[in-house]
């Protein structure tokens, strides 16, 4: 139903370019999305699972978690888009005529992500994930200048090749499952697959799972397949970067998690996929520590940090104990909120200063104190500093590493996290203090502080985790550990 809302909204965006029309239509669509999505999440969590439309759509705790992240961040980002994109038009970054296409693709993008988390079918998930790539390609290349076209081209080619492998993997799974479940959709349905998991042909399934994890892994941006990610995330308009980093990466990871939880039940066991995830995770962390330290462009810095956090998630999920999966699920939400907030506030900053070079931005505190405050909050949250929620989630993954007998891995992870903290601190302090450039217009309204809402939520969740959220996370752990 909310997929329908998003699709209709997308088409509706094309009808007019008037600012007021677009604002109104977007607000109505967001309201409907929140209401119908919220209702679905409520139903899912109270009953454990929820089916709609004769089984074609199905949610459990894990899909509900992703669904809530998508909705929260979509609302935040689109509301921010109103002012931001209109300001971009005033600065002649793109013609006004093109604004409706921006909203059209954004809503198609949201619809495809909603499809990914609403289907119980590994084949349809593939269709949805490839759909997200296509929906975002023109958003990445939205400014149509040389860099934007280059980033969009790299993005669509590399991700499509990666995803093709996931399709091959899905076919191998179908070949293994169709003798048991018949030549129909149910042979790719993760409600049915666990029942026959132990009888799946091991050779076919192992090959299929490997292809799927590596293929979707390219879309998550695990190192060493991350080459497209910093380009795409830095060239897209900032609200789109926020959606890409905070939600889309999670959606691709979600596809891997479905395969992972299925693999745990087969004769393959959790070890192979878990180890691959941990390798990806560790490699991402290690490489990104270097990139973050050396970075000059602020949006690329945030993009590399997204790869790093996907690495942390992969470590947590790959380790596969109750504690680490709990921590990783929490971290997935918190990273989404933090990264969306950072991209939004940095997008504002880049618009005001007109540059993405961190060495050319100085004295933010003097010029725009409220932006400065939010940047400090974002800095503390993204690096996992207490009392932010990210500290809690990273801590449970780290302690899991030590408890399961990976002290060296745990130590190195801590070391890389420290290096990343130092890198972020250095870059951000350089921008916050110092003598501002005289051409800058100082002053901003206190209403800027509204933008900090996601970070305040992350802060709140660091101090106190409500019982209902804890229960949901435990349900998610159960879904990943035990199939359905």
């Amino acid at each position, binding site marked *: 139903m909310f997929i329908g809302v998003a699709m209709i909204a997308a088409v509706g965006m094309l009808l007019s370019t008037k600012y007021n029309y677009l604002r109104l239509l977007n607000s109505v669509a967001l309201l409907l999305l929140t209401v119908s999505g919220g209702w679905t999440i409520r139903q899912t969590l109270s009953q454990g699972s929820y089916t709609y439309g004769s089984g074609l759509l199905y949610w459990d705790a894990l899909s509900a978690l992703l669904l809530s992240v998508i909705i929260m961040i979509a609302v935040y980002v689109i509301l921010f888009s109103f002012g931001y994109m209109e300001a971009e038009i005033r600065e002649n970054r793109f013609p006004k005529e093109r604004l409706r296409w921006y909203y059209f693709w954004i809503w198609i993008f949201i619809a495809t992500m909603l499809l990914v988390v609403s289907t119980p079918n590994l084949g349809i998930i593939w269709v949805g994930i490839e759909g997200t790539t296509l929906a975002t390609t023109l958003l990445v*290349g939205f400014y149509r200048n040389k860099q934007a076209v*280059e980033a969009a*081209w790299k993005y669509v080619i590399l991700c499509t090749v990666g995803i093709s492998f996931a399709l091959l993997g899905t076919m191998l799974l179908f070949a293994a499952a169709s003798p048991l479940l018949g030549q129909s959709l149910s042979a790719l349905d993760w409600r049915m697959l666990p029942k026959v998991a132990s009888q799946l042909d091991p050779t076919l399934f192992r090959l299929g799972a490997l292809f799927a994890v590596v293929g979707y892994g390219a879309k998550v941006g695990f190192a060493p397949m991350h080459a497209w990610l910093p380009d795409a995330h830095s060239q897209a308009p900032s609200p789109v970067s926020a959606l890409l980093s905070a939600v889309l990466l999670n959606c691709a990871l979600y596809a891997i998690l479905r395969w992972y939880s299925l693999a745990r039940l087969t004769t393959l066991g959790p070890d192979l996929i878990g180890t691959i995830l941990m390798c990806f995770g560790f490699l991402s962390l290690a490489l990104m520590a270097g990139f973050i330290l050396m970075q000059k462009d602020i949006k690329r810095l945030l993009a590399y940090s997204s790869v790093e956090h996907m690495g942390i998630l992969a470590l947590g999920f790959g380790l596969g104990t109750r504690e680490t999966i709990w921590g990783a699920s929490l971290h997935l939400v918190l990273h989404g909120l933090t990264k969306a907030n950072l991209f939004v506030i940095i997008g504002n900053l880049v618009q005001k200063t007109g540059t993405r070079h961190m060495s050319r931005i100085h004295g933010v505190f003097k010029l725009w104190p409220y932006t400065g405050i939010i940047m400090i909050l974002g800095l503390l949250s993204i690096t996992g500093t207490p009392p932010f929620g990210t500290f809690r989630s990273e801590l449970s993954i780290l302690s899991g590493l030590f408890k399961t007998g990976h002290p060296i891995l745990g130590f190195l992870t801590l070391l890389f996290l420290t290096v990343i903290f130092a890198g972020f601190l250095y870059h951000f302090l350089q921008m916050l203090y110092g003598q501002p450039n005289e051409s800058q217009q100082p002053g901003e309204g206190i209403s800027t502080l509204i933008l900090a809402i996601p970070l305040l939520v992350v802060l709140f969740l660091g101090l106190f985790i409500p019982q209902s959220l804890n229960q949901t996370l435990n349900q998610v752990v159960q879904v990943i550990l035990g199939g359905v």
Partner: protein
Amino acid sequence: MVGISENMLNLFLFVLLTSGLIIVYSTRVKKALNWWTLQTIVVSILILVQGVYSREWEVLVVGVLLLIGKAGIIPILLRRVLRESKTEWVGEIYLKRTSSLVVAGALTLLAYDVTKPLVTLSQPGFRFGLVVGLALIFYGLLLMMIRKVAIVQVLGLLLIDNGIFIAGFFLTKGMPLLVEMGSMFDILIGIVITVILSKQMLENYHSLNVDHMRSLKG
């Protein structure tokens, strides 16, 4: 596979593999595109024949969609871009046409070797289908690495897609209709989007050479 005789199947597979090799060997983009179109038509005929023999309407629908969507619309779109950009040559980098053919031959042997563990699973005739599918995937990857014209990279992608389709067809007689239709729709939209992007590339760089695009680093 009910109905199709062993000889016919071998003929189909021969055409599919050879057209893949010719695409790698071509130096003119248009020629490579024509061979890809022929290959896709052969794939859809294979599927239609199978559908007629087994009397499964789902298989027939997939075959017709393949013929109209992929073999029909995609070449028209790509040909238009080629005409507008006046692109003729494939832009060889790293490997010239002869050496690329040698590498493609080696990749075929690799595909044969990789599918060995799966041989016990499928009937002997299918084995070769699987090998051809995998070989085409490898050719596609090769093409994307050794050619610098954007449209040839798209052709590589399309070759990979054909390979996956063939491999899937011989492994499982095709996926559920909904998934097949979804993936075909994705490919079609994907081509439309790459065509739009190549037009923007032309506006910015005045050529489809992806070598020019090296500004994003670090």
